[in-house]
């Protein structure tokens, strides 16, 4: 359609979502603080005002373009209105810009500069807020402008909804339920709120100080670099994309005191190789189907919390980060004769959830420090070293080479495609078909030469994953293997990547990663010489391979105290705890509870029973769960509980006599 923009005829696309997007396509970026292409339209910030047909001023995010529309995007009046909005926001904003994590990448700061705000006419008001530093995601509401981007991303794109608007009027703030610390909530630390926050209300924990500490010690510091880092870091360094970016980073890290630098893509090859064998085994035995990928720590936590009955379906192979950390500490250290305790493994990741992964109890001491692409770029900038001028250096052996597949782990579809590559080499493939089901969900049908068929799903975005899981549970959709990456477009869109971090930027990163992978000489992990050597020498004993496998557990979503239902102020009593968490509740734990309360009141079960409601024994796979004193009753029924209670009574009487 043709419209008139600032007096000039402009051709707009007919199917644009709104005027803001249509103008963006036509090369005019309308200022905005709360608009995201990826979520529902909110229209709160009022920065995207435009004048239409010489009369009304409206928000361009909420208006559809129309044939012949006369649009003015930058009149003195609009300019003044936008300045007013910025001043009002700044009046309640914590303006510690020079010591802010988002200094230089803050959208509010950028607009304040562009609109020439040098004086705020309104007096500064401090909001009474607390910082939450309990997890890798840091919340600081003194910098929040209430655009709601995080709230919408968390609920609509990621299907978590751990934060929402709370309170009202001037007291409004974004908070988890009851303002609980994030570390005690269902947050999966994917960092998509961080990726989309225009200010520093949501950031990630910056751990660079710990790196400098390690480098100044006598320890052997080993760097490992994830695939997605090399496709994005140029954005921070005013460089063009470069297929040798990773090798430039290797050279930089060596100059900064790292003893060795290995490629996480090598570990990705290893993970795909191991996972393909694990998958084929499960396929043949028809057990724990569908297999769910486990490379993405945010997805793993999501399954542990929301699909506890599918925890066993997760591939037990560790993620590439943890796999590489493990083989460095357990195999490499022996080969070079260094005590693992004298090695510090520092991983460079696009991801905030990887910080959490490394801190999971079962992984402690494997990867010592996780830094994001943003932190790495800070380190480079502070050093004054120009990456363009340093000569690229290859990754160190033996964990330095990877296949195209290993590198493609950095974007959606990479894990599945690489697993398929391994099966192509080891079993053979007769036919394969791919199709798009919805944005963020692809399906694949792969026929193996042994006659078996593999239906695969490739998913990004946890809300998409929730839709897919619903269909899997309802058996509407067939799948033997499901790859899920929590972030849109995969790891390249991680919460630790440079800003802006929207779909447009991510698509470009995917292209760069594809090009970088495309020039690798080997396609499949099977062709990776050092991987094969590892299997022939170090993994010859099958039990040795266990070191790159792990376990998962059902995980409670909220920390909460027990609820006293029928308390008994008595020492020698029998305590019955009934789980009222989601899985148990769905399977009828409330019915058991009410039957117990009824019987207890009638003293059918004796007179010393205390009944307590609780949230989650983290054993959701066998729900409903009831605990009598210290004994956990899985798949409980009222009858089962009654039996156990009778036993207890009998034992008690015996011990008394």
């Amino acid at each position, binding site marked *: 359609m043709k419209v008139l923009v600032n007096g000039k005829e402009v051709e707009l696309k007919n199917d644009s979502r709104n005027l803001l997007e249509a103008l963006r396509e036509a090369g005019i970026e309308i200022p905005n603080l709360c608009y995201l292409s990826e979520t529902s339209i909110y229209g709160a910030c009022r920065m995207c005002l435009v004048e239409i047909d010489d009369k009304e001023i409206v928000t361009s995010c909420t208006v559809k373009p129309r044939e012949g529309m006369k649009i003015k995007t930058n009149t003195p009046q609009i300019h003044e209105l936008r300045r007013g909005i910025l001043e009002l926001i700044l009046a309640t904003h914590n303006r510690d810009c020079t010591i802010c994590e988002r200094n230089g990448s803050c959208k509010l700061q950028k607009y304040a500069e562009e609109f020439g705000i040098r004086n705020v006419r309104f007096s500064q008001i401090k909001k009474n807020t607390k910082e939450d530093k309990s997890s890798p995601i840091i919340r600081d509401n003194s910098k929040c402008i209430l655009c709601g981007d995080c709230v919408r991303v968390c*609920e609509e794109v990621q299907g*978590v*909804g*751990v*934060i*929402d*608007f*709370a*309170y*009202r009027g001037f007291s409004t703030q974004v*908070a*988890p*339920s*009851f303002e609980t610390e994030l570390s005690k909530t*269902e947050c999966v630390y994917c960092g998509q709120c961080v990726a989309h926050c225009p200010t520093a209300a949501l950031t990630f924990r910056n751990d660079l100080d710990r790196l400098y500490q390690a480098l100044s010690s006598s320890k052997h510091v080993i760097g490992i670099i994830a695939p997605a880092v090399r496709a994005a870091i140029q954005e921070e360094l005013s460089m063009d994309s470069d297929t040798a970016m990773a090798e430039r980073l290797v050279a930089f890290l060596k100059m900064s005191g790292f003893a060795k630098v290995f490629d996480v893509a090598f570990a990705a090859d290893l993970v795909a190789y191991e996972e393909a064998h694990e998958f084929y085994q499960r396929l043949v035995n028809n057990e724990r189907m569908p297999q769910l990928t486990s490379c993405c720590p945010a997805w793993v936590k999501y399954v542990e919390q929301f699909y506890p009955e599918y925890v066993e379906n997760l591939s037990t192979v560790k993620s590439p980060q943890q796999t590489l950390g493990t083989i460095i500490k357990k195999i490499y250290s022996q080969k070079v004769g260094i005590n693992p305790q004298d090695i510090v493994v520092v991983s460079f990741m696009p991801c905030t959830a990887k910080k959490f992964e490394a801190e999971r109890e079962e992984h402690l001491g494997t990867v010592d420090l996780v830094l994001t692409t943003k932190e790495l770029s800070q380190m480079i900038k502070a050093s004054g070293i120009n990456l363009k001028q340093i000569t690229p250096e290859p990754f160190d052996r033996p964990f330095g080479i990877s296949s195209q597949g290993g590198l493609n782990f950095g974007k959606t579809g990479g894990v599945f495609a690489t697993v398929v590559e391994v099966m192509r080499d080891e079993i053979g493939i007769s036919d394969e078909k791919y199709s798009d089901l919805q944005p963020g969900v692809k399906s694949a049908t792969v026929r193996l030469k042994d006659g078996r068929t593999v239906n695969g799903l490739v998913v990004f975005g946890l809300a998409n994953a929730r839709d897919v899981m619903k269909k899997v549970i309802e058996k509407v959709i067939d799948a033997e293997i499901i790859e899920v990456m929590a972030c849109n477009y995969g790891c390249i869109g991680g919460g630790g990547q440079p800003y802006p971090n929207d779909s447009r930027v991510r698509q470009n990163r995917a292209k760069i990663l594809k090009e970088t992978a495309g020039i690798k000489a080997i396609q499949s992990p099977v062709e990776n010489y050092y991987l094969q050597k590892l299997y022939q020498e170090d993994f010859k004993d099958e039990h040795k391979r266990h070191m790159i496998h792990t376990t998962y557990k059902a995980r409670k979503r*909220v920390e*909460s*105290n027990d*609820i*006293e*239902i*029928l*308390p008994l102020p008595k020492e020698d009593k029998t305590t019955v705890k009934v789980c*009222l*968490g*989601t899985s148990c*509740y769905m399977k009828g734990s*409330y019915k058991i509870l*009410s039957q117990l*309360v009824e019987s207890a009141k009638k003293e059918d079960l004796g007179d010393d029973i205390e009944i307590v*409601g609780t*949230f989650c024994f983290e054993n959701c796979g066998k729900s409903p769960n009831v605990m009598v004193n210290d004994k956990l009753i899985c798949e409980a029924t009222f009858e089962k509980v009654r039996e156990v209670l009778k036993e207890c009574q009998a034992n008690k009487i015996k011990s008394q006599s």
Partner: protein
Amino acid sequence: MERNFQKVEEILQKHGYKKENLIRILLDVQRQYRHLPEDIVNYIGVALQIPPAKIFGVGTFYAQFSLKPKGEYTILLCDGTACHMEGSTALLKAIEEELNIKPGEVTKDLMFSVDQVGCLGACALAPAMVINEEVYGNLTPEKVKQIIRRLKEEGEKDAQ
């Protein structure tokens, strides 16, 4: 004391376990427990499949809900324009003297709580207050003290 935990289940049942009835459910919970307890909010989240943060958002948005327990007698003292002009400040002083609590607080025995509100819509009766859905109008400090004393006696009788 037996915690009436089954009450929340009855409330949910009454409203058909429907997400769209959240506000009604919360109103009943507020009435039953005199506030929105955290465990009950989590329980509703589980039962309705709504993130607890969303329920917390609703619960903190509307003045009808409170996160701290309210007294058995909830005094809402109007401080809208009409009541303010007719001397609501003196009424507040009377309540504070009688109960030793300030707006937003609850007495130690959980019998009384007092809150100031914008307008009760009873301007013709200014100055006015509402205690547990009953409206008291044309008040004076002395009348307020009498009402509270009477309720105290009733409360004590109930307790026996």
